[in-house]
């Protein structure tokens, strides 16, 4: 069985800070990580590999050359092979163009049984690339997967698909595209064996636009249907009041008075 996991290297948005004077993001010193949901997807693929025989797990990422770090991390967790899609022609891609490029790479890889993505990336939060890949490859999709069982004999998967107040039990034939959420599993650590015996010894394949069969009008900035019109930093609206007091009891009293004044409590 062949599983391809799409991963994205993202800045850890918990660490992102804002320069309030210039209104821009401070990305310097912000660590790059594998997008958390993608890590859950990878973990699930590796679990399937632990349980079933003859499973290969390929990680696929699109990004600048430094995204290799994320792929190395995936190899250290136990993935078998890694492919980086990197080319200036890919720059500025929105979700449509990104999904176009990734699905072209998936077509080149071929013979996959499961394409696994994270639900969404923490930098863009769109949750669109997975379903768009599924559409372009004409695959059924199950998103928000919180539990998965692979029935290899019958060539199908049974998944729990999370919704706001519960979940659907779903079934699909393979090949299928799945998107993982945090509840699916707890990702493993990079193991020492993986780090020394796999991550730094397995060559990461680099594919450029020339390696893919892809319509050049449908990728990059000019192949993106959506454009960024403007960006801005969310503004603070007002100055609040600091509840002063010598002791916690004084502050608590101030709190109580304000709440009564405003008829909140």
């Amino acid at each position, binding site marked *: 069985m062949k599983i391809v996991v799409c991963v994205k290297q993202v800045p850890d948005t918990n660490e992102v800070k804002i320069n309030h004077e210039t209104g821009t993001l401070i990305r310097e010193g912000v660590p790059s990580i594998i997008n958390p949901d993608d890590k859950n997807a990878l973990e699930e693929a590796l679990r399937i590999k632990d349980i079933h025989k003859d499973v290969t797990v390929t990680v696929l990422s699109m990004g600048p050359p430094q995204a290799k770090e994320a792929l*190395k*991390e995936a190899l*250290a967790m136990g993935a078998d092979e890694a492919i980086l899609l990197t080319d200036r022609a890919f720059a500025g891609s929105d979700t449509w163009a990104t999904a176009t490029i990734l699905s072209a790479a998936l077509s080149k890889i071929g013979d996959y049984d499961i394409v696994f993505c994270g639900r969404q990336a923490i930098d863009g939060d769109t949750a669109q690339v997975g379903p768009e890949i599924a559409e372009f490859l004409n695959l059924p999709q199950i998103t928000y997967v919180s539990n998965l069982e692979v029935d290899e004999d019958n060539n199908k998967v049974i998944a729990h698909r999370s919704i706001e107040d519960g979940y659907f039990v779903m079934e699909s034939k393979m090949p299928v595209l799945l998107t993982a959420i945090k509840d699916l599993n707890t990702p*493993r*650590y*990079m*193991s*020492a*064996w*993986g*780090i*020394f*015996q796999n*991550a*730094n010894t397995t060559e990461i394949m680099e594919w450029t636009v020339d390696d893919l069969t892809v319509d050049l009008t449908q990728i990059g900035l000019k192949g993106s249907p959506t454009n960024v019109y403007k960006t801005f930093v969310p503004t603070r609206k007002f100055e609040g009041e600091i509840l002063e007091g010598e002791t916690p009891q004084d502050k608590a009293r101030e709190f109580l008075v304000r709440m009564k004044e405003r008829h909140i409590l």
Partner: protein
Amino acid sequence: MNFDFTNEQKMIKQSIEAFVKNEIEPIAEEIDKEHRFPRETIKKLGENGFLSIPFPTEYGGAGGDTISKNIVIEEIAKKCGATAAIVSVHYLPINLILRFGTKEHKEKYISKLAHGEYIGAFALTEPNAGSDASNVQTTAVLDGDEYVLNGSKCFITNGGEADVYVILAMTDKSKGTRGISAFIVEKDTPGFSIGKIEDKMGICASSTAELIFENCRIQKENLLGKEGQGFKLAMIGLDSGRIGMASQALGLAEGALEETIQYLKEREQFGRPLIKFQGLQWYLADMHSRIEASRWLVYRASYLEQTGKPFTVEAATAKLVASETAMYVTHKAVQMHGGYGFMKDYPLERMMRDAKITEIYEGTSEIMKIVIASQITR
């Protein structure tokens, strides 16, 4: 000269940091309070390869380097000195079995030790043979196909919890240190029992015990190395172990400094955060400088070990400086936390207690000075 981490070392650091954050930091206070040996944590460390980094892959090792091994101990010690001590000591018997053991020894023990299924311990110290290791009184007498062990060992880290012990015993008293031999003894061997479990000042989650041998019969094949090689083997093991201990001390110091900086940023007195007070900043600078000095001594000693060069003096120097730094930094850190530093709600008092042992075990600071002086005055 190159002071950068390799890719592998960076990844090991990243991975163990995550492990410590999820698996060790949350329980550090609790296992200290309850004096609970973190067996599950050790097992998980093993499952992820953190106990097998420098060993060859044919015995289940990761085929990595010694510096990476010590980075693991350092990172663990930032949040839990006891777990770091357990790991550091656990590495000692593995190292010795790999270097001196037979193929059968290796096949039987290394993979299980490296995967954390077995815990290892090393027993040299006796009531009358502490810093003076030559005065070993435990005896091993060959009787047919078996050695018969009699005597006792004390202050044995991982004692009572370990599955595999490397024991030093006298096989020929007349030869002095050249009459000492090393043996592999498994727990539950008849005649081998655990005596007093020590109640310690620090590293409370680790186990420190007395081992008692009363006509304990072990197979002849359990001899590790040759007869009479025990002392040499112990010194080799301890040289390497000292770098582990130095890494533990380094981590403790770093952890205490991190906690302190965080605290000083949050705590306000006289209308401004403590971090703004120059008097305290000077302490921080001192703490930092000593930590950096320790760091490079520790890494260099690891590097020498890794590259097969002599490292006895360097290991002793690293342990001397790092352990005294750990004590200095944790002591200052408690002081800078004021009353909170004295309270068990904050991790500093635990770190200070944990730091003290690093000046004592696997050779006291004084012994380190003897080792260093004897080499440089030759």
